[in-house]
């Protein structure tokens, strides 16, 4: 290397070196996401593809599948094949369970929103130190064992549970009211399970609310009610949508709650799917049912993406 080259370009050489280093390290950094992507790809995404394939196969007699193409799983969702003349008859049993689950999920979402919005708003308007406590208190049930929390509800609404015992002792009733293993129990369980899922996203969106806008509204003679409906709620729309989705999707596929509080009698989609893999011994049907649920979830997510991207455009 000549002395001229050395003296004339130390800076550019250093810059070149730096750019090179940044480039290679950026390329290397990118590879860091590989382990996570491989694990989720192999043990998370691949299984989803496998159930797509399984849903198009024939059920083996003792669970599992036989490698033979068939669309029976999807047909069985709506029809039942007559054993004698092989004709298809419309049987709405599964459809009813899906509609029922949908209804449960919608009611859960609406009631959680009605309770969760005021709660989140109240939390967001506390002084910062108090806010932290509220968030921690809502976060604890969010992360607590769902099975145990459902058990706690069961404990209270059983025939010999606290509510019935108290009412019997007070002489209000002379025979326990049956609450466990009813639709009411499932609905109550779902509300209890998913309430924190509504409050937390609402809180994080309400916390960022610009109260100068609220003040401006009052200056323009808005009433409290108008401020709520025309300023606060529209501004917190992203949080409302996120919260509704976070409640609706797991409520639709809920498994633990109907299993324990519905007692295996009042099925929801989640139990129905699990049953095909257990006592039902019809894996293809279970896979088809799971994929139909997945389709419903994707529709919900699609509306979410459309709504939130629209929001960005309006600024």
């Amino acid at each position, binding site marked *: 290397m000549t002395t001229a080259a050395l003296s004339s370009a130390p800076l550019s050489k250093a810059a070149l070196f730096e750019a090179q280093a940044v480039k290679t390290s950026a390329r290397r950094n990118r590879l860091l996401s590989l382990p996570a992507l491989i694990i989720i790809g192999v043990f998370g995404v691949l299984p989803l593809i*496998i159930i797509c394939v399984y849903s198009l196969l024939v059920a083996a007699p003792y669970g599992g599948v036989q490698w033979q193409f068939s669309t029976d799983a999807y047909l069985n969702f709506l029809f039942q094949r007559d054993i004698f003349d092989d004709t298809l008859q419309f049987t709405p049993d599964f459809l009813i369970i899906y509609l029922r689950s949908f209804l449960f999920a919608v009611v859960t979402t609406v009631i959680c929103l009605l309770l969760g919005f005021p709660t989140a708003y109240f939390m967001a308007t506390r002084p910062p130190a108090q806010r932290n406590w509220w*968030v921690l208190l809502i976060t604890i049930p969010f992360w607590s064992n769902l*099975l145990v929390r459902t058990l706690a509800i069961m404990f209270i609404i059983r025939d010999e549970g606290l509510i019935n015992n108290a009412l019997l002792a007070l002489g209000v009733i002379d025979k326990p009211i049956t609450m466990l293993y009813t639709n009411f129990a499932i609905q109550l369980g779902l509300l209890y399970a998913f309430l924190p899922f509504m409050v937390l996203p609402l809180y994080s969106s309400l916390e960022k609310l610009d109260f100068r806008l609220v003040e401006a509204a009052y200056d323009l003679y808005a009433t409290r009610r108008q401020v709520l409906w025309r300023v606060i709620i529209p501004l917190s729309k992203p949080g409302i949508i996120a919260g509704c989705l976070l409640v609706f999707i797991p409520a639709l596929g809920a498994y633990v709650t109907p299993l324990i509080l519905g007692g295996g009698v009042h099925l929801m*989609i989640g139990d129905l799917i699990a049953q095909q893999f257990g006592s039902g011994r019809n894996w293809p049907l279970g896979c088809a049912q799971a994929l139909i649920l997945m389709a419903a979830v994707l529709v919900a997510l699609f509306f979410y993406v459309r709504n939130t991207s629209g929001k960005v455009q309006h600024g």
Partner: protein
Amino acid sequence: MAEPRVMDIKDQPGFRSIAVICLLVLYIPVLILMIFSLNSGSLVTHWEGVTLNWYGSALLNEEFHSAAKNTLIISVTATIVSTICATLAAIGMTRVKPWRGLAAAFMIINLPLMVPEIITAVATLSFFALIAGTLGLNFGIGNLILAHTVFCIPFAYMPIRARLEDMDLTLEYAAADLYATPWNAFKRITLPLLVPGIMSGAALAFIVSFDDFTITQLVAGPGQTTLPLYIWNQIRRPMTPEINAISTILLLVSILFVSVSFLIARRRAK
């Protein structure tokens, strides 16, 4: 009241009572469960006095031991693996120029959060059945560890990524100016600053694995009973306060880890 009220513009009437009701609704059932775990009578619903005996009998129970051992093996391994993967992925997805496929990679990482748990459960079950059937492979309890690792990754990933995005990059630039190699800058600057995020993520990963019921129940083979599965097996029999004691232990573990994760995150905010 005659005198004019001072109006707080943030106030909305009735919201306070609803907030308090929500909190009561969330806590009363679990508090009752916890209180009844101290009941000295053997009937779950009839209060007879305070005792810690049920905790004693729960802790001496052989089945409880093996369930607790399984749970810890699964959740500790899943936490370690998922936290390492999530940390690497968070660095690989924030400390780089946007690359093609970044959005797709982000979606894959978050996929376990979007798919309903029951679908993940039956899909994982089908997957392991398939590789057992065609390749003759069965990882035993490793099946559960792998299944748990998948859904733990996004939970560990979120706080780590948030921490990375909040981080002041000037410190790393300063290190680079002082001739630190990229690796040294990472080891001496980035990693120590990232530790709270990693701990917070690991705590969350541990809880979701420790508490998981749906996926574990469907994927678990014989002899792979975890604590949630143990509770589920018990509630189908006549219930004793022992099950309340075990449930309380599970809740306390969750509360401990959530609080730790929360306090670490709050220290960061200060």
